[in-house]
């Protein structure tokens, strides 16, 4: 019994190491493939649209909702010691540094990463990936690179949109509902943040974009089995990339704010 438990633990550790190694290898291959011809502009444009443009409504809605709820909490919290005026400043700080990049990252992991995993997974089980290999095309280059580039470009842009919508969400609540001065809110939102914070937000978004596309594509690419495997790929891709987004967020915040 104890041996089988040990064995299982050992097998789990070995599996994890193997998977990590495989992920790192495939990721490395995709980064190298970016610079290898042939370059497929049409597919990149398609992915830019699929990852970026089509995600705008989701990002707008979530960012609006989260920023408004956060503004409600802030104004309630600061009211406890008659400091409602600080709400706008803290709202700006929170939206730019944390809420916009993380919410965008998590939403994109659900919307884009899962789609990548499902698409590639289906291609694996219907032998389309093998067909690519047989047509002398590296699947990693053909499938990973456009998705990787599109996510790396689009996530920072979507985060930009999320920041702007976050500003509007806070405005709606603090100015529209709580009756703060619009001029003061406009000044306060940017009071505690500097250009460096925007750089931090974009860096985070870039890293999240890489995580989402690489994990999504890799999970799909390594799909095994039939319908069940295809079903598991998006689920595990969303869970894995969300987890890594949160972990990366912590360390990026620690590193970049020092």
């Amino acid at each position, binding site marked *: 019994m104890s041996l089988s438990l040990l064995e299982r633990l050992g097998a789990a550790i070995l599996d994890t190491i193997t998977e990590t190694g495989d992920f790192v290898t495939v990721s490395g291959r995709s980064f190298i493939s970016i610079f290898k011809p042939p370059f497929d502009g049409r597919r990149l444009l398609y992915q830019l649209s699929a990852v970026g443009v089509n995600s705008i409504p989701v990002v707008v809605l979530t960012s609006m909702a989260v920023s408004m709820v956060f503004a409600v909490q802030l104004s309630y919290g600061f009211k406890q010691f008659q400091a409602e005026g600080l709400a706008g400043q803290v709202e700006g700080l929170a939206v730019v540094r944390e809420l916009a990049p993380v919410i965008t990252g998590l939403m994109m992991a659900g919307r884009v990463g899962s789609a990548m995993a499902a698409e590639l997974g289906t291609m694996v089980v*219907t032998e389309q990936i*093998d067909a690519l290999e047989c*047509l*002398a*095309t590296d699947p990693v280059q053909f499938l990973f690179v456009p998705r990787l580039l599109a996510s790396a470009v689009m996530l920072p842009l979507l985060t930009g949109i999320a920041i702007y919508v976050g500003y509007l969400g806070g405005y709606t609540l603090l100015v529209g509902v709580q009756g703060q001065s619009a001029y003061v809110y406009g000044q306060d939102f940017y009071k505690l943040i500097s250009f460096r914070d925007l750089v931090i937000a974009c860096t985070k978004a870039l890293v999240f974009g890489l995580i989402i596309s690489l994990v999504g594509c890799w999970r799909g690419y390594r799909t095994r089995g039939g319908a069940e495997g295809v079903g598991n790929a998006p689920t595990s891709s969303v869970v894995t990339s969300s987890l890594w987004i949160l972990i990366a967020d912590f360390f990026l915040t620690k590193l970049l704010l020092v």
Partner: protein
Amino acid sequence: MPVIDVVNLSKSFGKKVVLDGVNLSVEEGESLVVMGGSGSGKTVLLRCILGLFQPDAGHVTIEGKVVQDLDREHLSEVRKSIGMCFQMAALFDSMSVEENVGFALMRHTHMTLAERAARVEECLNMVGLKDTQKLRPSELSGGMKRRVGFARAIALKPRILLFDEPTTGLDPVMTDVIGRIILDLKAQMGVTSITITHDLKSAFEIADRIAMLFRGKCLAVQKPEDFKANPHPVIQQFLRGDAEGPFLEDPPPPARDPHRTPHPQAIPRNLP
């Protein structure tokens, strides 16, 4: 020198031994048909030839190059000279027929759009399809999908063609059509080919030589007439298509019982 040389190839998945020391060689312009029961390792053999699977032992040489020793770039070069037709066609479902057939042309040649369209049309005509360029794979029937798969495989004018069960799941007429297309392609392009099939009729039509795989081993590689006369019980049973014999042992086939008791609610066969 043989174009394709399979040397002592072994491959197992876990405890299941799929290929066990298989030796095969195909000369230039020759058409080899590989037969064998389901799960006898035919598809795995093709995948090892293409370098999609790494064998446990042995190797495959294609035109003198050992596939297993090649890095990705050289393997790609070798694969450009091979056309592979998949069992379920494996068409890219996000692309139209035209994009599917022209895929390799777009990736590996510097053809203009017009040249590419002309070559795509030529390939589709060779497999008996017309005006299907704009269709999506989901709009095609099974037989049409296979033929588009053929057209995609021949677009780069390969020297070697591999067919993985090209007729499985098709009606007898379409099976004959596919058999003829394979013969036509062979005649027009002079390719070396390996065809995996269960269909005896088309196998004897296509083959210059026939190989039989059984439990991971190659039982015989012979000319069709010699193969028919081969006294090996497994081969004879396969040719007869009979459940009784050494082919299935574990588990054995259901017994042939002429006195099966019918289900109590079964409707009598001979109604007045």
